[in-house]
């Protein structure tokens, strides 16, 4: 048993050092006693030579205790690191100097300490809060030793940036002395920022060095040293750091807790402008004390490991098909058709309005895109800038997207299908420089404080514009740019082109970054797989594919519907849209098709005839039952029905037609066919504990995580370094997080999500086959299989939504239970412990079909533990 001074800190790490001071504030010859945590004794005991030193600098009002997990991980890492976590002077257990130490002093203090310790070899600085600036100050003064920089919730707070409101309050004379010195309010408030709350013993350890007002002098001075404006004595030192770091070329890792009232996302964005090479991970839900809220040690050492691997030449990532040979930029089709007066984009007007559809020809689209691109450039939209589009699909969105692509601006597409909270999180995470939105979008931007210069898509009075905080309108920018060509940006194939968001049905929505090359590859894959030639025409009832219409040279029409709510597409709206462009192709989601079928009786003969001309219908976004497809086929008798399988990160991956689905029959999962043009699919086999390893197989009958390799796979996840590392941990492959297997004919079957795999005593069980079996019971509309109990000994439980709709959640009645249990046992050999019913399944908004199984699993476990039965999510 190792003796601990504080929870997680072995006594051997704590040491005191006498350090001669060179700080301007001290008399020559002054020596200060420093306290620090140093894991050297561990390394010596291990006989390990450290790869370098992590120099960790806390902020205010914490101390070296903040970095204990790094020190522990440094000792045990495969490539160990020495970890030195200092208590700054007047802070923690270091000396109380009786002086007012300013930023410049603190930077030289840190240098004095590393001199006294005689630290040689590579150093990676680690900083938090105000310690981030001091660590960067040290970094700039020790460039030859500096191997990397790790930053956690901090800010370099340059000129032009206003102080965070919470800090302004802390600095207010009425608050400052009282809040920081005389009482421990500032400490307590800071500790209370932890998400979830700190354990009492951890909280006590943080407070330990600050008992008594005299021990808190440094806390107060630290706050008072924050430059509020240019007249502040520390302003120059701060500017030196803030500007100096632009020259840093070392690798940077930023680990961020976005729920921080002080060092919020805006400071992260500011840092990324100065340190564009940074790898970033935003821990959604974590706050200021990110080192307490999440495990930061594992990613820091993974990152250090990845840097090391990069230095070893063999392990480098397989290069993209480099160069521009064969690369055709997305907007190229527009340029080629600059004189084509046939329709390019058509918006159907609401049937109730009686208006004719709005039609834009290829020539008009090209003119408008160029004008808008010029107008956007006038107001400062530059290559690499992020532009968030909160505009429904149609002419306006199409124009905006292609204008941005021409400019080299990065399109951020986050749709209302994420829900308001999810949308807000997504936008804040992506951090757009500009937001273009309809009035509702900009109102949201204003209400939730989304970043970016606001541009209105639509018309409004000057007063209304002011209220929305809109600096410009699309119409005004288009007018300003009319007659001018788009700014001359030669498409860099490997520059970022778009950030698309996942549906967020399995945790917070993730941004997937596509480069121009990868976006173009998506276009080419679609063209080849579905033979979408220029001159074809398509109804875009499913947003992602709709954006590709102009790039494909296809006429696209947006039906009268709320594209973010697929259930609003009626059969008549679909038929009218098809008729408007003599559509040959229809894109739709399963939820939209379900409503189309429900409203099909309302069709008139003309509308039926328009649908009869459709040659290809694609249902994408979620699996679709064969029975539903069969009924769709009756509506579009001439069409080939296809259901591509894919995800936001790779669209599409495989394809299968209705005919092939019928041929495949019933099996373990949903048959999704074979890889689309240019894509390869493989599996990482599942272990008994339900995890997927690093083996890769294409053998039939083996269940594993589905891996995709294709030129149109996402480039990376946005500001989710840890997630990206995992998803690309098998070089050249994207780990989809779906599980499935190949059959003897090489067809892929999807068996569910990796995170939804049950771990029963009999091994890992994938859910989809059992769900299909349950759904074969006529009473059952929708079923989800969840595991209840501890990992490894879970029992399977079916949660079902019935056709007639249960009145309240709880156990299914005896006959339904028997029917479902028998169906599942017969088809899958699985013994269900229980069958529960819900009036309505919790599903995602975008697809209206992805069931939130983690919530269901928690609910089922609560119900089956005994006690009162409540609705999912009612107990917390």
């Amino acid at each position, binding site marked *: 048993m190792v003796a601990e001074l504080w929870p997680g800190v072995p006594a051997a790490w704590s040491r005191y050092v006498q350090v001669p001071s060179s700080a301007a504030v001290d008399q020559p010859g002054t020596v200060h006693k420093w306290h620090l945590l140093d894991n050297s004794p561990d390394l010596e005991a291990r006989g390990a030579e450290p790869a370098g030193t992590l120099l960790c600098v806390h902020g205010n009002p914490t101390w070296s205790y903040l970095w204990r997990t790094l020190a522990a991980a440094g000792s045990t890492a495969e490539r160990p690191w020495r970890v030195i976590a200092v208590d700054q002077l007047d802070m923690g257990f270091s000396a109380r100097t009786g002086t007012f130490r300013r930023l410049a002093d603190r930077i030289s203090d840190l240098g004095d300490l590393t001199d006294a310790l005689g630290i040689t070899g590579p150093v990676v600085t680690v900083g938090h809060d105000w310690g981030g600036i001091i660590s960067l100050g040290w970094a700039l003064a020790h460039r030859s030793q500096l191997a990397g920089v790790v930053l956690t919730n901090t800010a370099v707070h340059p000129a032009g940036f206003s102080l965070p409101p919470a800090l302004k309050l802390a600095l207010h004379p009425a608050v400052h002395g009282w809040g920081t010195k005389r009482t421990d309010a500032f400490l307590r408030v800071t500790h209370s920022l932890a998400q979830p709350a700190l354990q009492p013993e951890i909280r006590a350890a943080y407070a330990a060095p600050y008992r008594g007002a005299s021990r808190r002098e440094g806390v107060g001075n630290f706050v008072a040293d924050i430059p509020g404006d240019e007249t502040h004595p520390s302003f120059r030192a701060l500017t030196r750091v803030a500007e100096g770091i632009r020259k840093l070329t070392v690798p940077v890792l930023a680990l961020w807790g976005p729920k921080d009232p002080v060092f919020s996302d805006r400071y992260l964005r500011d840092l990324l402008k100065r340190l564009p090479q940074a790898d970033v991970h935003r821990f959604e839900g974590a706050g200021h004390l990110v080192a307490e809220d999440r495990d930061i040690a594992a990613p820091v050492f993974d990152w250090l490991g990845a840097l090391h691997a990069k230095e070893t030449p063999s392990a480098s990532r397989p290069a993209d098909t480099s160069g521009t040979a064969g690369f055709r930029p997305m907007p190229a089709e527009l340029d080629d058709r600059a004189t084509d007066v046939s329709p390019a984009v058509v918006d159907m007007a609401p049937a109730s309005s009686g208006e004719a559809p709005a039609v834009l020809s290829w020539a008009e689209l090209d003119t408008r895109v160029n004008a808008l691109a010029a107008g956007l450039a006038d107001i400062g939209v530059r290559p690499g800038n992020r532009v968030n589009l909160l505009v429904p699909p149609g002419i306006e969105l199409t124009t905006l997207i292609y204008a941005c692509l021409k400019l080299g601006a990065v399109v951020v597409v986050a749709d209302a299908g994420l829900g308001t909270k999810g949308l807000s999180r997504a936008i804040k995470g992506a951090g757009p420089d500009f937001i273009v939105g309809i009035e509702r979008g900009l109102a949201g931007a204003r209400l939730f404080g989304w970043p970016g210069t606001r541009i209105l898509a639509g018309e409004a009075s000057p007063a209304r514009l002011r209220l929305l905080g809109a600096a410009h309108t699309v119409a005004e920018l288009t007018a300003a740019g009319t007659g001018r060509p788009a700014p001359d940006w030669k498409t860099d194939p490997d520059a970022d082109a778009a950030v698309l968001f996942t549906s967020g049905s399995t945790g917070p929505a993730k941004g997937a970054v596509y480069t121009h090359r990868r976006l173009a590859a998506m276009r080419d894959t679609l063209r080849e797989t579905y033979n979408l030639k220029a001159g074809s025409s398509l109804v875009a009832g499913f947003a992602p594919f709709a954006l590709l219409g102009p790039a494909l040279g296809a006429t696209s029409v947006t039906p009268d519907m709320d594209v973010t709510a697929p259930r609003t597409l009626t059969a008549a709206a679909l038929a009218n849209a098809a008729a408007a462009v003599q559509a040959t192709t229809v894109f739709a989601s399963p939820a939209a098709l379900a409503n189309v079928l429900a409203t099909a009786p309302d069709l008139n003969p003309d509308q039926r005839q328009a649908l009869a001309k459709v040659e290809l219908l694609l249902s994408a976004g979620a699996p679709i039952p064969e029975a539903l497809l069969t009924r769709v086929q009756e509506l579009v008798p001439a069409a080939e029905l296809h259901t591509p399988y894919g995800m936001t990160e790779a669209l599409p991956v495989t394809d299968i037609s209705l005919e092939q689905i019928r041929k495949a029959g019933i099996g373990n999962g949903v048959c999704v066919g074979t890889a689309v043009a240019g894509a390869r699919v493989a599996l990482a086999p599942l272990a008994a504990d339900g995890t997927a390893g690093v083996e890769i197989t294409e053998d039939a009958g083996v269940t594993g995580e589905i891996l995709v390799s294709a030129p149109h796979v996402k480039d990376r996840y946005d500001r989710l370094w840890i997630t990206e590392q995992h998803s690309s941990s098998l070089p050249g492959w994207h780990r989809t997080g779906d599980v499935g297997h190949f059959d003897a004919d090489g067809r892929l079957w999807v068996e569910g999500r990796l995170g939804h795999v049950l771990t029963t005593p009999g091994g890992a069980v994938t859910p989809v086959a059992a769900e299909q079996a349950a759904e074969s019971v006529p009473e059952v509309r929708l079923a989800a299989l969840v595991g209840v109990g501890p990992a490894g000994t879970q029992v399977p439980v079916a949660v079902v939504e019935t056709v007639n709709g249960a009145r309240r959640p709880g156990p299914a009645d005896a006959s339904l239970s028997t029917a479902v249990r028998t169906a599942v046992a017969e088809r899958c050999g699985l013994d269900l412990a*229980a069958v529960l019913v819900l009036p309505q399944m919790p599903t995602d908004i975008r697809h209206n079909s992805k069931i939130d199984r983690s919530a269901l699993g928690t609910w089922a476990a609560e119900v089956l533990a*005994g006690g009162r039965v409540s609705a999912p999510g009612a107990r917390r």
Partner: protein
Amino acid sequence: MSRRILVTGASGLLGGAVAGVLAGQGHYVRTLQRRPASDPGLESVAGSITDRTAVDAAMAGIDAVVHLAAKVSFTGAWAEFQATNIDGTRNILDAARAAGVRDVVFVSSPSVAHFGEPIAGAGAGTADPERARGHYARSKAAAELLALAEDSADFRVAAIRPHIVWGPGDTQLVERVMDRARSGRLPLLDEGAALIDTTYVDNAASAIARALDRMEQAHGQALVVTNGQPRMVREMISGICAAAGIPAPSLSVPGWLARGAGSVIEKAWLAAGARGLVQDEPPMTRFLAEQLSTSHWFDQRKTRQVLAWEPEVSVEDGMARLAKHYAA
């Protein structure tokens, strides 16, 4: 290899089944119970395990013991539980050791390690007489600790804890449920959604018999035995009712109410019993309310691995056998 085995408590449902399985495997089986047993194929000795002389006599020439005899009740005075369950077990252990017995299987109950909270997929846990709920569980916990403390390489003791044993002719659960359902005295607690493990009697018997073959692996341990098919309380109850052709209970009572009422009824019943007013068990006790309103199902991986055993009769097959039995 044929062994000479003493089975105590063989007049009960499970004890009888164990004796039958062992005899069927070709072992010589002697049973010890208070009333003479009727099975003509077995040597039956009448006597109480609280009587050391009777126990010594029954132990003569025996090389393995399966000890099932116990006082099983939701009510009663602690002294009675202590005498039968703790002192009786002491007698069995001492007599067995004196007679040169090699192996003892102590049949216990998962309730020795239940403390009233829901159990979902937990392991066996250590018996705790202080925290176990009710006299029965407390006394069994103490007895199990006694038994396992005796374990050594040449006097091997294993504890097998079958959970809620049921089958045709079972008076503890099956017929009590039928009885109360018939008279409308059986409410479901909180809709009866709590997940519970049960053990069809043939499976419990085969697991206990198997333990004697696997003493090398099992000795010194306590193993929970179940069907490995947890079901909601309501499904077990409605299954049993269906087997008897009785409508399943539809009245649902909040668990907290039943637990509170259980405490009161239990005390009143005991007081009435002491004055000779009632002989039956009370309709509801706190322990029973807890059992019926909180989950208790177990991780069976270790049990199955140690015993190299699988249950043969599923819950559904067991219900079918129940229906056949009560239809006759």
